[in-house]
């Protein structure tokens, strides 16, 4: 219960944050940080029981008949994520208070970032697939608002929309996948699904569900080829980049993969999709990280690389790999969060984030430099840091992989060496060497800006030196949760002399070489026109194409379908009717059933029909309205003649009268209309002719069908038998009109009279 209450309160606090900021002003960040701190303490208190293998499971049946319930499930995996989200959240809130001190919408910023925190906590703590999706989309939505926070800038708006579209569409795929998963497993409860892995993997829904879920996870966790939104999302204020786009939100995809791996993992499809995607992302992300000069973009690409490594490890799915993944997750959240916050502090003090314009900041910003150094140590994977342990584990997992261990280890070394170089670029270059930046007196930022990076960077070292304090139990719990069985993880800085250590040494050497050679490499890349090539063929181009396509579709849709022309709307209705009715006729009625009736006609009947056909053709072909009206009149008279021939003189008389009246009325109207001027072109006419023929054909077929069906009317015999006896009249039609249905006739006459009065009133109005 306390969990749900805490979650609800997080959103309440978010809603009240702007008001609170108005009251607290300067201190708002420090005060608001107390709430995530409370979360951290609360979750930390659960560590004991969860590491003992006793996960917290709360479930309120809500609509049992529909299988919908409010449920929360906190195991080792949720705990690790929850602690990262709340712990880093507290530091980021403090940092934001200082970083955005002068921003006039700081209150709104708190609103967004706290709602993000609530959504993210909900995402990792919920035990229901539907709730998971809702929180998933909420994080996308809050990310949209946070990236576009400085909405005066066009780039920020563009990047926000891009992130929303990519992760939002991925979210839709995820939803479809989760629903299929629910159908396959017969429940939407996570805990139950995790126990039904066998059945799920055997289900016919498995493959489509897996593909859809992977699309969701890959878009969210910026895997190739959906990675492009993450570097662009660096338009967000730096605390957002540190929090959402490195430490927490982008790991939601990884969380999902880890969460579902007991249920979905282990198959060939999973191995190929997840391992392959992760491996490609790991290497490509690391290579691309060397390119940019903006500190934050460099960090973003390196984040992409690490996310790839995490995905890759979860794809392998061996106990070693999962162990490495969970350690790397923890290490990365700590050092990357710290480095982003350092980048923000440097930007805050010097006004630039360009690595080539920074240097020698160390002496004037000692605290920031210390934080950066510790974080960079972890990123480069050097002892004594958590990054070192995780990299050792990564190599170990790769070397023990079932397939292609050498290739995997090679890719791992390449990516890690590149990250060593990147760590140098972001952690060393700005602080050592010659001071490039000379304007003004540089100094460390206020405590709110250095507390976060220092604690995060320090934690990366401290947890490695004393792993049994926190790192080992946390990873143990998380790994047990992912593997679905109790597993003990003991993290150690020193593993003895083994192949992993050798690879580490190689990595550091190669990394140092790459760091030194970076200008040279960039020069080669520029000559090979890599950037232009990527712009033309990269996935970002695909995204732009898609947007253009969507706009074009909208315009085409409006132009084609929503043209405003009545005739076009009619055409669609008729076409659909023909499709519906025609298909029914075609399926159910053999043509031969009523073909015979057409042939059975006498010559003078045929003559009239031919005449009517000719008149119809004339009505269609003539360009004079009067001629068309006259031709239609001929058709009408033809019908009347046919009535006469078939022995219905009264009907024929009525038809003659109606036709005459119609022609006269039409002529009166046509007389006042201008001549046809804009006649449609040939293609339009052909189209209309085809449509008219199809519609006419359909009506003809319908008439023939009606005629061939035996009409079992009870009325005709009744009137025939009773018109003379009851109403004393021989003409049945007349008797029906004036006797049997006299009331109807009275009604009709009344309507006509009312209409006549109306017409008279209108005419009178016109004359006045």
């Amino acid at each position: 219960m306390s969990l749900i209450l805490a979650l609800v309160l997080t959103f309440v606090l978010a809603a009240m944050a702007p008001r609170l900021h108005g009251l607290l002003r300067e201190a708002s960040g420090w005060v608001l940080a107390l709430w995530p701190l409370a979360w951290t303490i609360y979750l930390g208190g659960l560590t004991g029981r969860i590491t003992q293998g006793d996960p917290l499971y709360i479930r309120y049946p809500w609509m049992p008949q529909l299988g919908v319930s409010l449920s929360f499930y906190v195991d080792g995996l949720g705990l690790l994520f929850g602690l990262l989200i709340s712990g880093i959240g507290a530091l980021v809130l403090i940092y934001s208070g200082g970083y955005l001190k002068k921003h006039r919408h700081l209150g709104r910023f708190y609103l967004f970032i706290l709602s993000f925190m609530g959504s993210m906590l909900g995402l990792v703590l919920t035990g229901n697939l539907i709730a998971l999706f809702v929180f998933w989309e909420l994080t996308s939505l809050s990310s949209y608002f946070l990236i576009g926070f400085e909405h005066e800038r066009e780039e920020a708006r563009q990047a926000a929309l891009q992130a929303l579209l990519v992760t939002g569409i991925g979210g839709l795929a995820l939803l479809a996948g989760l629903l299929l998963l629910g159908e396959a497993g017969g429940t939407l409860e996570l805990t139950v699904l995790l126990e039904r892995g066998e059945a799920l993997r055997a289900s016919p829904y498995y493959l489509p569900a897996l593909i859809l879920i992977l699309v969701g996870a890959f878009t969210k966790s910026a895997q190739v080829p959906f990675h492009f939104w993450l570097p662009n999302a660096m338009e967000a204020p730096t605390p957002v980049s540190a929090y959402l786009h490195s430490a927490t939100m982008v790991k939601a995809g990884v969380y999902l993969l880890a969460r579902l791996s007991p249920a979905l993992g282990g198959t060939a499809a999973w191995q190929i999709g997840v391992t392959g995607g992760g491996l490609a992302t790991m290497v490509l992300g690391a290579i691309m990280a060397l390119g940019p000069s903006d500190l934050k973009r460099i960090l973003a690409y390196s984040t992409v690389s690490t996310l790839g490594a995490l995905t890759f490890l979860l794809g392998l799915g061996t106990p070693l790999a999962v162990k490495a993944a969970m350690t790397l997750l923890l290490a990365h959240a700590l050092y990357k969060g710290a480095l982003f916050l350092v980048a923000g502090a440097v930007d805050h003090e010097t006004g630039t984030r360009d690595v080539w314009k920074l240097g020698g900041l160390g002496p004037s910003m000692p605290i920031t430099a210390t934080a950066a150094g510790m974080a960079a140590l972890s990123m480069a994977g050097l002892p004594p840091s958590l990054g070192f342990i995780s990299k050792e584990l990564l190599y170990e997992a790769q070397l023990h992989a079932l397939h292609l261990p050498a290739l995997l280890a090679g890719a791992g070394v390449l990516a890690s060496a590149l990250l060593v170089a990147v760590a140098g670029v972001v952690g060393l270059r700005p602080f050592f060497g010659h001071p490039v930046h000379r304007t003004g007196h540089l100094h460390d930022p206020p405590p709110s800006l250095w507390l976060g990076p220092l604690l995060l960077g320090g934690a990366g070292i401290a947890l490695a030196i004393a792993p049994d304090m926190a790192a080992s139990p946390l990873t143990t719990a998380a790994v047990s949760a992912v593997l679905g069985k109790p597993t003990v993880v003991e993290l150690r800085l020193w593993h003895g002399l083994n192949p992993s250590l050798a690879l580490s040494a190689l990595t550091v050497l190669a990394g140092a070489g790459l760091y030194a050679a970076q200008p040279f490499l960039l020069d080669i890349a520029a000559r090979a026109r890599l950037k232009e090539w990527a712009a033309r063929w990269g996935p970002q181009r695909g995204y732009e194409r898609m947007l253009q396509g969507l706009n074009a579709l909208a315009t085409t849709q409006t132009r084609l379908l929503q043209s405003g022309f009545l005739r076009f709307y009619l055409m669609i209705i008729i076409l659909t009717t023909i499709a519906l009715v025609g298909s029914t006729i075609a399926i159910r009625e053999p043509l031969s059933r009523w073909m015979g009736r057409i042939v059975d006609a006498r010559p003078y009947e045929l003559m009239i029909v031919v005449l009517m056909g000719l008149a119809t053709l004339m009505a269609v072909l003539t360009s004079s309205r009067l001629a068309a009206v006259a031709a239609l009149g001929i058709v009408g008279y033809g019908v009347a003649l046919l009535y006469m021939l078939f022995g219905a003189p009264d009907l024929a008389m009525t038809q003659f009268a109606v036709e005459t009246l119609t022609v006269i009325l039409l002529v009166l109207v046509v007389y006042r209309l201008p001549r046809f001027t804009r006649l449609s072109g040939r293609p339009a006419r052909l189209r209309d002719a085809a449509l008219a023929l199809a519609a006419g054909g359909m009506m003809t077929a319908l008439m023939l069908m009606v005629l061939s069906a035996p009409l079992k009317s009870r009325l005709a015999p009744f009137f025939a038998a009773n018109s003379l006896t009851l109403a004393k009249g021989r003409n049945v039609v007349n008797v029906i009109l004036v006797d049997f249905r006299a009331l109807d006739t009275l009604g009709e006459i009344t309507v006509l009279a009312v209409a006549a009065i109306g017409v008279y009133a209108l005419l009178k109005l016109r004359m006045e």
Partner: protein
Amino acid sequence: MAWLPLLPTLILTAGALLLLLAEAFRRPGSAAGMAWGALWITALGTGATGVLATWGPLEGIYRMVLWDRGAFWLSLTILVGTGIAILFSQRYLADRGIERGEYYAFLLLAAGGMLLMAVAADLLVVFLALEWLSFPLYILAGFARPQPESEEAALKYFLLGAFASAFLVFGIALIFAGTGLTNLSDLAAWLRRPDPGAQSLVWIGGALLLVALGFKAAAVPFHLWTPDVYEGAPTPITGFMAAATKTAAVAALIRVFWTGLGPAMDLWAGPVALMAAATMLVGNGVALLQSSFKRMMAYSSIAHAGYLLMGLLGEPSLALPGVMFYLLAYSIATLGAFAVAVRMAGPNGEDQSFGAYAGVARGSPGMGAAMALFMLSLIGVPPTAGFFAKLMLFAAAWQAGWIALVLIGVITTVISAYFYLRVVVAMWMDRPEPRHLPRPDPGARLSMALSAFATLFLGVLWLMLGGLSL
């Protein structure tokens, strides 16, 4: 007793005639009194519906009309829609100098036709009701004369509507030709033991009925008139059409396809499923691309027709209450949204583009909050009524095995969040331009308050009952 199912219809129609008569004799400048009269008549009709609610199934007039629980819920939805539409019409009309008694009379007449549709048990009554409700609407769509858009809307609606009616009559005629029946439950009985020689006539008749009723319900591909007409018609009428006319059209679909053609469901399920899928996709997809609130709401009404069509295919024990509840929840939220739109329309000319909504919530937070609530309900976010309505429909379709349809429904629902929230974001987040709302409009404010209350109340009510019964 035989007349009892017609009681609400008769009350509204008699009221409409009375109003017309009064219009001829009223003093100039007393038009607001007509609105009050119309409200009282609607209240009387609602009272009659409430009294009838306790009565069991009630057949009347040669089994041509039928009062049952479905009829009660449909009538209630229609009457609520009529009442709210009258409430928010008055100031809008007065501001434009087009407030005349006929307006309210036609509104009541149309509502009378819709109420007749709710109790129809015979194909001929369906036809009669359809014409009865349509003709006043044709006139009302053009009521903002001499605005050309309004006249164009009226003419388009009239011509296409007449066309659709022709399909309806033809379909009825074919069914009659094949079976000699027009009564819907007799038709169902016939279909359980069909005469093979006449079967195809009935199928084709059914197809034509689907075209005609699909047109009225604005289902794809018969939806094309909707955006044009909704945009051109006076805003209060658009709201009335989106809510009450939709209800009546769905009532017709329920009566014809469940009561009448129910035993032949295997045959019409395919086309209806296709239509439902296309309607959900097109309605929501195109709504994303709109820049005017009224047009967006037009596509929204199309989209919801898709969800309702899906409900038509659902497992009956869930689908019947589901469709009823959905209609009520959708109508109320839509009417509330249109109350805001009416409030936004200045006395001379109206701008319904999203830009016009920018920052309005800062000046009138109550209105902004109400709008947010309506949009959330239209998306289907708990704890609003819209959420539970969608839940019931989706569950019904899911249990009937329409998994692909439910997936489309859920995904389009998520898509719909983007365009519905756009209005809310514009109202709350965008920078306000210095602009004043027109003078206070108590009618629209009351409509908003009532709709907002009902949206939450229905949701909370469902929330409390949902766990226990369903």
